[in-house]
């Protein structure tokens, strides 16, 4: 706290100088080794006997340019589905997790229902849920049937909320009972305790695994194309069939990674912050 003019001792200055030199040195070493490994890899791949054939059928720039608009249109569908399904699955998962924690005999049926839900939808393969909803439900020929895209999205929400509910529940149960006692002793009701004390701590704690599941969801949203709607991968498949060339898949793959990078970066940052908070106190 003191603001007297502080002058670092020679020992401290020498330490700082040494640290600076070490940092510069390690950056240089990292750069050199990256360059060496990259060059080696490039030689190994381009020097392979079949490289020319592979390049022609996977890395054709002209075909990539031609396929790009269709793949981008598909990707736009992925993106919209991802946002809607992620929000839907997070909300539904949270509600189910809360229902599972309700105590008291009155809530037994609700609790049992919520529990069976997580068992059923974590057990059922996503593809089967998808077919049931997109092919089975329209077969009922009910009035006002939502489009296949919505039904497909619903299948994703149902399946993923089963997983997310368990992640949320783990978070809720990780909050120590003494926190509940403290909140209740202040006169907060069960609901207020959940809302202001338990859930904020629980969600913070499980944010990394939640985001991880959203990254997984990002790859699974494409499965709705099994029911008709054309996502990025399906668009690439169509383009491949037309050109007899696999380049469109590479285009779609690169776009998927680009789409995932921000989400994964956020996940890493949140994970790091959570780890730091845990070790800090």
């Amino acid at each position, binding site marked *: 706290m003191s603001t007297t003019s502080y002058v670092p001792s020679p020992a401290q200055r020498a330490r700082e100088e040494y640290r600076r030199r070490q940092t510069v040195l390690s950056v240089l070493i990292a750069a050199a080794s990256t360059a060496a490994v990259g060059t080696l890899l490039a030689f190994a791949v381009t020097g392979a006997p079949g490289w020319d054939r592979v390049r022609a059928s996977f890395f054709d720039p002209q075909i990539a340019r031609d396929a790009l608009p269709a793949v981008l249109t598909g990707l736009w569908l992925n993106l919209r589905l991802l946002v809607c399904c992620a929000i839907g699955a997070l909300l539904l998962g949270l509600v189910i997790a809360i229902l599972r924690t309700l105590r008291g005999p009155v809530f037994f049926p609700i609790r049992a229902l919520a529990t069976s839900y997580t068992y059923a939808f974590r057990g059922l393969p996503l593809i089967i849920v998808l077919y049931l909803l997109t092919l089975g439900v329209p077969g009922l020929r009910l009035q006002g049937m939502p489009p296949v895209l919505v039904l497909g999205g619903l299948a994703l929400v149902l399946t993923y909320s089963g997983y997310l509910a368990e992640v949320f529940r783990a978070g809720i149960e990780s909050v120590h009972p*003494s*926190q509940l*006692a403290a909140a209740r002793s*202040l006169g*907060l009701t069960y609901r*207020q305790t959940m809302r202001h*004390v338990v859930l*904020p701590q629980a969600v913070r704690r499980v944010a990394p695994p939640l985001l991880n599941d959203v990254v997984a969801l990002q790859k699974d949203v494409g499965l709705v194309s099994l029911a008709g709607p054309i996502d990025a991968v399906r668009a690439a498949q169509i383009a491949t069939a037309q050109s007899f060339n696999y380049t469109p898949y590479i285009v779609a793959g690169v776009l998927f990674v680009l789409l995932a990078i921000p989400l994964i970066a956020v996940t890493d940052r949140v994970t790091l912050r959570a780890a730091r908070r845990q070790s800090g*106190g």
Partner: protein
Amino acid sequence: MDVLRCRGLRKVFGDQVVLDGLDLTVAEHQVVALIGSSGSGKSTLLRCVNLLEDLHDGTIELDGEDITAPGVDPDKVRRRIGMVFQSYNLFPHLSVLDNITLAPRRVHRRARAEAEARARELLERVGLGAKADAYPDRLSGGQQQRVAIVRALANSPRLLLLDEVTSALDPELVGEVLTMIRDLKTEGMTMILATHEMGFARDVADQVCFLDAGRVIESGPPSQVLADPVHPRTRQFLARIIEARRL
């Protein structure tokens, strides 16, 4: 006038009887110290008074009103009783100020500005004004415990329950918490405190109750119970404590 009247309290965990027909009366502005060996039920008694545990028999009256009667809303009762725990139990995701204003705002529906002004005033009074915006993990144990006491006081409770509020603290931090409790006594707060610190019990309590086998087997002014106990169990307990050099 009596703030609290407990009659025949019984509490059972499995086949272990923790409270066995316990009686306790606390008058207004009185400070009662609960002493007794570990596991004698001091914490359980405080938790029962705050309705955090279900009773298996007996009645508790707060200001003459039976709070164990069927149909009484426990949440409304707890607003009138403050409780401070051994391990502070501050909410780690909330700043000091938000910890203190949570109940006034959500339970008593005070406006944010009003609740914060009062919280700052209370913090100022215990010398923690500068820590209002800090998070609990940035405070020392003694500071955290003082915030926990302020948090309980922000509800303007009729009765304050303190459960070994200094036993998790380093010896040099104990003093600041004890000073605060002494000040509360001067202001006339009615308190029940469970403690292993006989020196503190002697210093601050009007009445000391010795718990054993789920009952208060001896009670009276500290000068009598701590210096000249009547019951052999009390004598045994105090002898052990003196042996451990805690008196």
